[in-house]
């Protein structure tokens, strides 16, 4: 891998970040006339002057008393110090604290989902490819035509209905005290596991099937190559051929799609989180949106986008390390 390529990609990622940051600052502002007005709706027995004073104080507190361009400069300056600003919520908590509080809970869902879909998917896909044309393969094919047309939130509702309400296997709605009472004890971990079961299952059904299909097709493509024939002709056992020769080469496309999944880890589960009342990043964003808390909205969007930028960058670099055959960095 060329050094110039790495440097080029890093600079490009920084460029994308700057543009995203700028968009991120201006887009929420399109809809807000005067943030102070929204923050303090005229109410109660305040006189006009008192109200004006409060509004002015609010503007100053959140830095809205200067021109928009000056606000942008302040925003950039704050970002350089890794400060995402303060939320409009009462007690004005820092946005980064709010994100840090919610992030682990989203990751619990999405990382578990990714791991499950990856491992089960690759296993199923390898089996289907190995038993090509038999019932295992047909089953996967038929399953994929159905799961791709079913939205995850519908699967989630059905699962809640049958597993949550009818069979009472899992709690149908997340216990709101789960997060505040979490203390790394065995019981608390078990509570989280039972609460997370339904969201994770409903998210991973689609993931398992699509990774399975991906692995299947990629394995079949590799199986047709000459070196597999050579390996078999050498008299290697079918298992050795599968694990040492086929799967290893078939993994490359999976890495690409893994990179895509990783860049969606944080922002991917808004609807599922909303259904199960799971206090993660998605619900935090919806709360921020419904209360017009746009420092918080900007913070979350920026955090998600920068995560995606970094994930894409790492995937690109990893991929060119893994597969030296591919010439990278050249745009036609």
């Amino acid at each position: 891998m060329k050094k110039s390529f790495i440097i080029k990609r890093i600079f490009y990622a920084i460029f994308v970040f700057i543009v995203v940051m700028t968009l991120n600052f201006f887009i929420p502002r399109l809809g807000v006339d005067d943030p102070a007005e929204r923050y303090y709706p005229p109410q109660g027995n305040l006189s006009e002057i008192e109200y004006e004073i409060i509004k002015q104080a609010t503007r100053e507190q959140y830095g809205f008393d200067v021109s928009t361009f000056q606000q942008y400069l302040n925003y950039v300056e704050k970002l350089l110090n890794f400060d995402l600003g303060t939320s409009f919520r009462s007690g004005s908590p820092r946005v980064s604290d709010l994100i840090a509080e919610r992030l682990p809970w989203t990751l619990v869902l999405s990382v578990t989902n990714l791991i499950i879909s990856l491992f089960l998917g690759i296993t199923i896909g390898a089996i289907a490819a190995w038993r090509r044309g038999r019932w295992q393969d047909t089953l996967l094919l038929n399953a994929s035509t159905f799961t791709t047309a079913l939205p995850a939130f519908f699967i989630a509702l059905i699962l809640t209905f049958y597993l949550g309400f009818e069979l009472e296997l899992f709690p149908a709605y997340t216990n709101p005290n789960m997060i505040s009472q979490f203390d790394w004890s065995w019981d608390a971990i078990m509570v989280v596991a039972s609460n997370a079961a339904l969201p994770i299952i409903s998210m991973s059904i689609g993931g398992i099937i699509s990774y399975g299909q991906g692995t299947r097709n990629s394995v079949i493509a590799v199986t047709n190559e000459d070196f597999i024939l050579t390996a078999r002709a050498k008299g290697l056992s079918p298992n050795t051929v599968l694990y040492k020769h086929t799967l290893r080469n078939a993994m490359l496309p999976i890495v690409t799609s893994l990179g895509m999944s990783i860049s969606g880890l944080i922002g991917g589960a808004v609807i599922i989180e909303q259904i199960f009342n799971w206090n993660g990043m998605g619900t935090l964003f919806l709360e921020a949106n419904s209360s017009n808390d746009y420092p918080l909205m900007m913070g979350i969007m920026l955090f998600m986008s920068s995560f995606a930028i970094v994930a894409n960058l790492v995937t690109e670099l990893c991929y060119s390390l893994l597969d030296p055959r591919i010439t990278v960095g050249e745009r036609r």
Partner: protein
Amino acid sequence: MKTILKILNKIGTVLKNIFLSIWNFILKLWKHPKGKIGIIVISLLAICAIFAPLIAPYDPYDVTQRAAKGLAPSWEHLLGTTITTGQDIFSMLIYGTRVSLVIGLVTGISIAFVGAIMGILAGYIGGVVDNIIMRVVDILLVIPTLPLIIVLTNIFGKTYLMIIVIFVALGWTGLARVIRSLVLVLKNANYVKASELAGASRWHIMIKHILPGVSHLLIMSTALSCAGIMVAEAGLSFLGLGDPTAISWGKMLAEAQSGGALLFGHWWWIMAPGIGIFLAVFSFMRIGLALEEMFNPRMKQSNNMYKIFKHLNNTYLNEVFNSMNNEELLGIQVPLTEQTNLKGEN
């Protein structure tokens, strides 16, 4: 008088040709086993959407039926009534078809238009235009799509027109990439070179030579993006961010969830809109697949749906748009920076 007749005649033949080609196209689809299911289901849904007031036995907007709350399915109310307001679920289902179909079709077709224009411009003209368009694509693909859509609908209003505009503005990126990479191949084809040598203008080449070359991809991805957009719209309505005045399947699901369908065991209230979404999406995907096999017979044996609708379920819209990058389907080798897709194929 003669000139007017001539013009009318010309218009007539053009219209006739258009209708004939559409008819032939549908006939071709009909002969394809996968396309047949899709066409049957979609025509049924379209009939439901067009004649909704005639088919629906009750007024779905009527929330005053206090005596008929939470009824189970019977001959009077085919799918029962809602627990909260006593609306007839079957009528709501019929009216919900309108939203899904209209948004899916209009957005899918507009995405095809914008994606084709952007992709052809970027691929054929190249240079600065290409750079600008591809930078925009890269940026749009990085921003989390669902949060961005939520912010934009909040700012610009929740009417369906606005939602369509937002979907199109964010959704053309994946298609534009695919088209661009195909145009880059077509650009070097001999007939395009010949046309260039003969002195044809850029616009002539783009419209007469490049566009027909990518049209099969456009038609196919329109069917597939219709399906994707339907799921996306249902999700948006489910979050309460759709048009609050209209009945849509996503909103019905949200109402069922908040109205206690799960708690009281009214499974029909959940299954009805869910199956509606499933049928609509499924049939559009079938048509997309059938078209893909018709235009690209090499791909016949493998089920490529996963490539196009990878992760549609769990990671949602972002993935829907990303995964339209099906360069691999066309057998085009794309540089890695462009490649976001699984490589394997039979």
